[in-house]
């Protein structure tokens, strides 16, 4: 096997050192009944060439050559070449968690930069080194709020990504952390503050919203914060479209920001790996889950970085840890770091502006379900299946039919445009959208822009 760097002679020499006849002898103490008596039922090893061909064939059984208008938490953004150039360096790719700081300053420095840039983008004071993804960052943020407030109820907006809310429910079920939804304003698509007000109380640890929300709509973070704070709850702001942070006001009124960085040069890769992030106020740093890198000095007084505040973590605190997370998404976070470095201050803004322009050009003249301002996604009233079928004929993957997540939005689809969406495709989409007959002709709500 080409990954095993030994010749038979060398194995023999090693066995002699051990005074053994065969390597199998090293397993002779395994209880008889625990041993596998037959070879694994797995085909013989394949060559590199065959492996490449196998995955290439699988790749051709997908949508390789299609254009897509899907967003809904996963976005098609251009991945600058430097991203893979950097993460392909063995020194980053094949290193472990930087526990031994003296030979891990490379990784530690990039994480420190990652944390810093995330703070600048979100308006928070501190950020951790990454979470599994946005969907698991949200419940971790809620648990954090519970620890901070010593309350346990959580209110989550229905405009938060439906799958994130499912994950929140899974996590919460055994932690005595009841979760309730609150709604959105019908014609607007933004969170329903009145409904929130009616449900909030002094048992609420966290109010969780998302902005831009699942419908692409920019939420009123300030108002939500005031309401939450009035009742002593923390406001958790989630985000799925990190590119929006280049243009939108940072959610600085939030107490915790929990987001997904997939938009920052992380390929959609059928759902993962992505990188989640939690950022918060200085005061709550000791309640943060996950790893944190801090600045310090070496014995010669040189600036150095190391993992810090480990007393929050499972390997020290065990059952009292802030979370059980250990391995995180370091290399993916590095992709995001390189992405942010390449685009920089001006680039992130221009990128966001292009996304805004493309989505609004697409929406122009179409029948929108909601009237509130949106970033690069919007909800379209149409015959979702019919429209998508029509688009497929042009090798275009349309939007996400919303009935699956929101029964009340049966005749709607969520549509996204990014800087990768070419005008020709946008026009094609509009043409198809107009050609598809509307569902039972109710007077269009929200109305077209």
């Amino acid at each position, binding site marked *: 096997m080409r990954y095993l760097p030994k010749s038979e002679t060398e194995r023999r020499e090693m066995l002699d050192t051990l005074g053994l006849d065969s390597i199998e002898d090293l397993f002779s103490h395994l209880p008889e009944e625990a041993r*596998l008596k037959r070879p*694994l039922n797995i085909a013989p090893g394949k060559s590199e060439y065959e492996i490449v061909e196998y995955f290439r064939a699988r790749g051709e059984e997908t949508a*390789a050559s299609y254009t897509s208008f899907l967003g809904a938490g996963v976005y098609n953004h251009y991945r600058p070449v430097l991203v893979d150039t950097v993460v392909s360096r063995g020194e980053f790719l094949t290193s472990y968690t930087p526990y031994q700081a003296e*030979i891990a300053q490379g990784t530690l420095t990039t994480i420190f930069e990652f944390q810093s840039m995330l703070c600048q983008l979100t308006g928070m004071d501190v950020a951790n*080194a990454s979470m*599994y993804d946005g969907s698991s960052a949200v419940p971790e943020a809620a648990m954090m709020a519970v620890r901070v407030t010593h309350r346990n109820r959580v209110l989550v907006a229905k405009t938060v*990504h439906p799958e994130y809310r499912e994950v929140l429910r899974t996590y919460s079920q055994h932690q005595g952390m009841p979760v309730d939804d609150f709604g959105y304003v019908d014609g607007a698509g933004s969170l329903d503050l009145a409904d929130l007000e009616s449900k909030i109380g002094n048992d609420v640890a966290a109010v969780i919203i998302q902005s831009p929300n699942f419908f692409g709509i920019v939420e009123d973070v300030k108002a939500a914060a005031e309401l939450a704070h009035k009742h002593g709850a923390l406001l958790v702001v989630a985000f799925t479209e990190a590119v929006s942070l280049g243009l939108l006001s940072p959610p600085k009124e939030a107490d915790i920001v929990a987001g997904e960085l997939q938009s920052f040069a992380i390929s959609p890769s059928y759902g*993962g790996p992505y990188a989640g992030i939690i950022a918060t106020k200085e005061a709550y740093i000791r309640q943060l889950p996950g790893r944190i890198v801090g600045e310090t000095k070496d014995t010669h007084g040189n600036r150095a970085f190391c993992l810090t505040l480990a007393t929050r973590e499972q390997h020290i605190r*065990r059952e009292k840890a802030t979370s059980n997370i250990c391995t995180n998404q370091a290399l993916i976070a590095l992709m995001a770091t390189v992405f942010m470095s*390449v685009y920089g201050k001006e680039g992130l803004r221009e990128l966001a502006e292009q996304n805004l322009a493309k989505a609004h050009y697409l929406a122009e003249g179409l029948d929108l379900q909601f009237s509130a301002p949106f970033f690069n996604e919007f909800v379209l009233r149409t015959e979702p299946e019919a429209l998508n079928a029509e688009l497929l004929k042009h090798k275009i993957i349309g939007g996400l039919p919303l009935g699956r997540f929101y029964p009340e939005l049966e005749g709607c689809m969520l549509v996204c445009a990014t800087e990768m969406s070419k005008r020709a495709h946008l026009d094609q989409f509009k043409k198809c959208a107009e050609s598809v007959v509307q569902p039972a002709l109710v007077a269009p709500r929200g109305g077209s822009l």
Partner: protein
Amino acid sequence: MIRKTRPHITQNEPLLFEISSPGKKGYQLPELDVPPIDAKKALGSQNVRDEIENFPEVSEVEVIRHFTRLSTWNYAIDLGLYPLGSCTMKYNPRINEVVARTEGLAWAHPYQPEALSQGAMEILATLEDLLAEITGMDAVTLQPAAGAHGEMTGIFLMRALLQSQGNPRKKLLIPDSAHGTNPATATMAGYAVQNIKSNERGLVDLHELEKFVDEDVAGLMITNPNTIGVFEENITKITDLMHSKGALVYMDGANMNALVGMARPGDFGIDVMHLNLHKTFSTPHGGGGPGAGPIAVKKALEPFLPTPRLRRSKDDQWTWDYNRPQSVGRVRAFYGNFGVLVRALAYTLAHGGDGLRRATLDAVLNANYIRKQLEPYFDLPYTAPSMHECVFSDTRQVKKGVRTGDIAKRLIDYGFHPYTVSFPLIVPGALMIEPTETESKSELDLFCDALISIAKEIEEDPQMVLKAPHLTRTSRVDETAAARKPVVRWKPGQSSSS
């Protein structure tokens, strides 16, 4: 005598923020082909930020130099042995990186039509089957993002099964040798933790165990081979005992690298377990992640697995089944760390059944070879047969005032990444060494020579070891200062002595 390294110049490099200058650009976007939009008009001016304060502005060449220079400050598997016990730092085949970037896979959107996702779904289904065969279990979910995430999922499953039988119970039994994620997981699943003392051989003590198993006990979280690298000789007695009390057994599969092809947890009574694909299945650690922590279960637990599940439709297409009334629900969005799963499948295909078994054999051979060479120089508190790793204690060196952490730092001067320090807790001052199968004999010999040479240094000149490392661009780092007054982000006007 240091035979493996020589010092060489490496470039200093400031933080990105410190090389930023207004107007420098590392990007260019295509010409906008639609009319621009006035953001303030479209979104309301209160929703639009003026700028991203203090965000860096650098050019492309500065970006590549920045990260290239930083990378040279790292140690990595590509540079040499990385004997972190319990972490299974084995060679990460580069072919895996290539196939994970296959266009149709890397750019597959999780919501694209199933008809246009068959290739991706086929990959997941194939990997599920292979992992079931390797573990001897009945069903696998690939959703968890890492081992700890898998542990949480697995305990949720146990809880759901017990719940469905009427009583979720209150406690989980966890040996004192367990990894920190085990007890932390128990808490997240709402269980109290009952620690089980290991016996003098470092194994789970059956009598001790019997004392604690009762109707309040939901199950046992066991690691096998355990964290001192020893196979639990009574494993079937243990699982029988738990089952006899209606409790379940969760296995932490972080050490599966010692068993693949030789023994299967499904065959020795395990009900549910996780695998760390970023350990046993060679997906790169990447400085801390990403990983993947699939869960393998016995039939009884299958109905409770997270949604969605892959199902073969009548027209022989793969489809996602969301209609799983008994499911514990999702543990994350979408279907798992797909890109990591692709790499793990590539690893499995490259080895094949026989190759996987041979990898296990070499992994155990390497660990025992190291143990044999180092036994004369370091205390081996537990002498039961080692499998894929061996754990020494610093008791002998402590007499000279030198601890495992100091030996680790000196090892760096010798050109090696240290072993795992001070874990497991049942070993005083542990040196936990796991070479994995992808190390050559000469690399192992150099490693043993280095530790033996350090053992001698400790006798003759402990200071040399206590002040190590001496040959790195960064000398010993002050972690206490870092925690005392945490500085976790760059701020303008902050020190810049890189």
